[in-house]
């Protein structure tokens, strides 16, 4: 995966969020404070505007810039989480202009680790981690199985979607939704949903 594809990914992530802004906000209205779509869109619009300035950068620099933009514009819980994802990811593949499957695994694992530490989250807490964790696992398995990027990504997105859907049945233990007790059960987690959209955009860009 090269720099052009990375930029395409971020571009696609931005347009997908824009299209799903209402949907994400509706999900957040059910169990949160009805702003997840708005937050994400604010951040990704900023990122989108910045993309042209990143064309001749390496991937590490690109993801670091993306991180800074997201941190300073999303706000809420998702801002530091997405920001940390990109920050750790950028550090893990610093200086690279091209990512092979192993690099991608490193990137994803570092990002996941960052979110878990920042959010003090465990699997099953009904957060974006419940979408990201199975996705990273699937990617690792695919790489171990010798799958190439495209196919590995396909499996990853499928696992991510499963993870996202699985949040429906969970009772939230982190974030605002946790205050609802078992009233959070039956609603899909907005952060898991935006995270799925992020990985889907990634898949569509390789």
């Amino acid at each position, binding site marked *: 995966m090269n720099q052009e594809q990375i930029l395409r990914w971020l571009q696609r992530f931005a347009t997908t969020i824009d299209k799903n802004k209402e949907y994400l906000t509706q999900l957040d*209205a059910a169990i949160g404070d009805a702003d997840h779509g*708005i937050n994400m869109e604010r951040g990704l619009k900023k990122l989108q505007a910045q993309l042209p300035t990143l064309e001749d950068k390496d991937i590490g620099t690109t993801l670091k810039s993306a991180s800074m933009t997201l941190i300073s514009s999303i*706000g809420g819980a998702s801002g*530091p989480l997405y920001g940390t994802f990109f920050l750790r990811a950028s550090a893990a593949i610093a200086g690279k202009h091209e990512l092979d499957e192993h690099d991608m695994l490193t990137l994803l694992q570092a990002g996941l680790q960052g979110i878990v530490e920042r*959010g003090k989250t465990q699997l099953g807490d009904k957060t974006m981690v419940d979408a990201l964790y199975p996705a990273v696992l699937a990617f690792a398995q695919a790489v171990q199985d010798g799958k190439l990027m495209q196919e590995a990504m396909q499996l990853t997105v499928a696992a991510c979607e499963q993870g996202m859907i699985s949040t429906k049945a969970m009772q939230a233990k982190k*974030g605002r939704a946790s*205050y*609802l007790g078992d009233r959070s059960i039956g609603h899909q987690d907005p952060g898991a949903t935006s995270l799925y959209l992020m990985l889907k955009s990634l898949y569509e860009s390789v």
Partner: protein
Amino acid sequence: MKKLINQPEDFVRESLEGMAAAHSHLIQVHFEPTFVCRQDVPLVNKVAIISGGGSGHEPMHTGFVGMGMLDAACPGEVFTSPTPDQMLAATQKVDGGAGVLYIVKNYSGDVMNFEMALEMARCEGIRVRNIVIDDDVAVKDSLYTQGRRGVGTTVLAEKICGAAAERGYPLDKLVELCRRVNLNGRSMGLALTSCIVPVRATPTFTLGDREMEVGIGIHGEPGRQRLPLKTANEIAEMLTLSILEDSGYTRIMREWDEEQDGWIDIEATDFPFQPGSNILVFVNGMGGTPISELYIIYRRVAQICSQHGLNIVRNLIGSYITSLEMEGCSVTFLQVDDEMMDLWDAPVHTPTWRWGV
């Protein structure tokens, strides 16, 4: 949606511009990144106090910037945590060399953004400590939730710690005081109507004509329970007893440790409310409730306190930590010692409060 606004996206900025125009002798309002600070910062050798959070809770926090209270406040979008760059800019602006205390409400977004800001400020060589306020007894367990939310006690902590900083408390002592205020404060709130986030334009939740939402936070999120509407007396009883009957709540607080230069987890348990205690009672309106109704709530709260042998030594009645135009109220009890009472009475001069000067 009926509001005195222009474009919904401009709500926060224009409201801050209004504050800037109104209170230029007290505060400075900065944009990109957005923060409000005292006119006279940095104050050399005074510990600076910064708070912040989503907008929509006015007058908290921006209305509390000034002498004897906050050095800076970082307002986010409505009900959305501000971002670390705001906090970092505010920190750099107000630090007078004695360090900075962040007073943070326990919402995942606020906590994480302030943590990132603290890490960044450390990189810039500024001493920063953080205290997370988590006083909302509607949340029973800390294990299966994000833990208690930070609500009414935040306002009291900002006043008390602000006065202490003004008196020259060093950072460590201030952290200790702020933690003590938090462990002695408890709140419970309730909504009669939902609020409307400007950019969303529809109510966040809908309540029937004879329903109320109990155990709410301050972001228009649904509460713990939906109940049939009750009388003011029943509501006052429900809120007060939730506070008084709450058994000691234990949480793990993540604080910055200066020696280890890293995060540590501290376990801490609430102080129970003992008969004979001196308390400060804060009856807070959610933004759309007139003060006449708050007095009806206070009336009953005071009766219950006297039945329980609690001495109300100070009170605060008004809409200070709000959720836009939501109707409803919250009740906060703070068990006060002489030091806290003295600091409560100390002079303050902010857009919202001015006394002693």
